[in-house]
């Protein structure tokens, strides 16, 4: 059995394109669209999300044999919520401005369906190494998606990119609509269509 399983490398790589949590599995779109307004926030969100996902997948994979089937979801949610709280405390302590930017969407990582989805579908059934590979890949895929979308939205919506105190202005007349919700849906739809057409996903 073990030999038939896909390699660790594939488990990592699949999250980036083939099973991208945003572009292919299409999970957790609400916080995704809300945060993908600026590249800087997107990077912060990716870090927070990655910490929670990797931590949760690691722990659920470690304890998977002792979790009774009937109450696995409550146990997973307790673990996810704990990791989110830890993340929130750390962000509050070391980067209050990031906390301000991510706002309510930081604690809401708890109910992000990507996290519970990966735990339920993958890490609660697989070995620690495989789960780790999967979580890292999914984080990379999430990061790729949110950073690319936010890059387009910020560029078109505000006319430039602001990154760690440096700003690059490209357009003199930005279309503000792109940083608002309708713009998010438009960019997301266009991106999906393009990726499908190119056969990337």
């Amino acid at each position, binding site marked *: 059995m073990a030999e038939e399983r896909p390699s660790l490398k594939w488990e990592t790589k699949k999250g980036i394109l083939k099973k991208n949590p945003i572009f292919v599995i299409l999970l957790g779109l609400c916080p995704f669209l809300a945060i993908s307004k600026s590249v800087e926030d997107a990077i912060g969100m990716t870090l927070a999300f990655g910490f929670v996902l990797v931590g949760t997948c690691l722990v659920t994979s470690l304890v998977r044999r002792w979790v*009774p089937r009937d109450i696995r979801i409550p146990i997973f949610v307790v*673990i996810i919520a*704990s990791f989110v709280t830890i993340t929130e*405390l750390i962000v*509050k*302590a070391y980067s209050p401005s990031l906390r301000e930017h991510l*706002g*309510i969407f930081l604690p809401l990582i708890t109910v992000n369906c990507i996290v519970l989805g990966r735990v339920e579908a993958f890490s609660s059934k697989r070995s620690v190494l495989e789960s780790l590979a999967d979580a890292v890949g999914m984080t990379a895929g999430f990061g790729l998606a949110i950073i690319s979308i936010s890059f387009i939205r910020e560029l078109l919506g505000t006319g430039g990119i602001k990154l760690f105190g440096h700003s690059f202005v490209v357009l003199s007349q930005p279309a503000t609509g792109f940083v608002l919700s309708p713009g998010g849906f438009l960019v997301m739809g266009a991106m999906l269509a393009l990726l499908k057409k190119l056969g990337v996903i």
Partner: protein
Amino acid sequence: MRNFSVTIVTDNSTHKFKRLIGKMGTAKPIVALTLTCITWGLILAYVHQITEPKIKEAERKEKEATIEEIFPGCTFEEENGIFYCFQDNRLIGRAVEVETKGYGGSMKVLVGINLDNTVRGVRVLSHNETRGIGSRATEPSYLSQFENLRLEQLAFKPQGKVEAITGATISSRAILEAVKEALEHG
């Protein structure tokens, strides 16, 4: 379970143990969930203990930066939660933090007051108002209307001089009450 009963022939003690676990069948979920919660509760308590001073420090810094915004270039001394601001060793005003209840829960408002008891400036330190609706009442563009108002002018129009935001009356009122309280008691 069937597989297992074949193997126990050689190992009696494991058998007893597994039967005990089997009897605990219904208790197992309860024990598992309780243990999970206790473990993570302890971990969270530990993380909280480490980060708390840093969070307090960050909040204090933010508050001082906000006071600096209201009273540019002043030095301040804290006494009973009130910040007295001095410029060239002369008292020019004070800043008071008021906690009030908005639409989405508690709200911390910092009010800068001139020596003649008029409002110098208002800033919201933290709030949980609805984004895009109540949060408009926490923005500087709304709060600037309080500047230079006296206590008796602090009421909504037409009685007073304060304009409320349509659709965000509760949030607007919370700010107004906070400023009033600061002038009355601070």
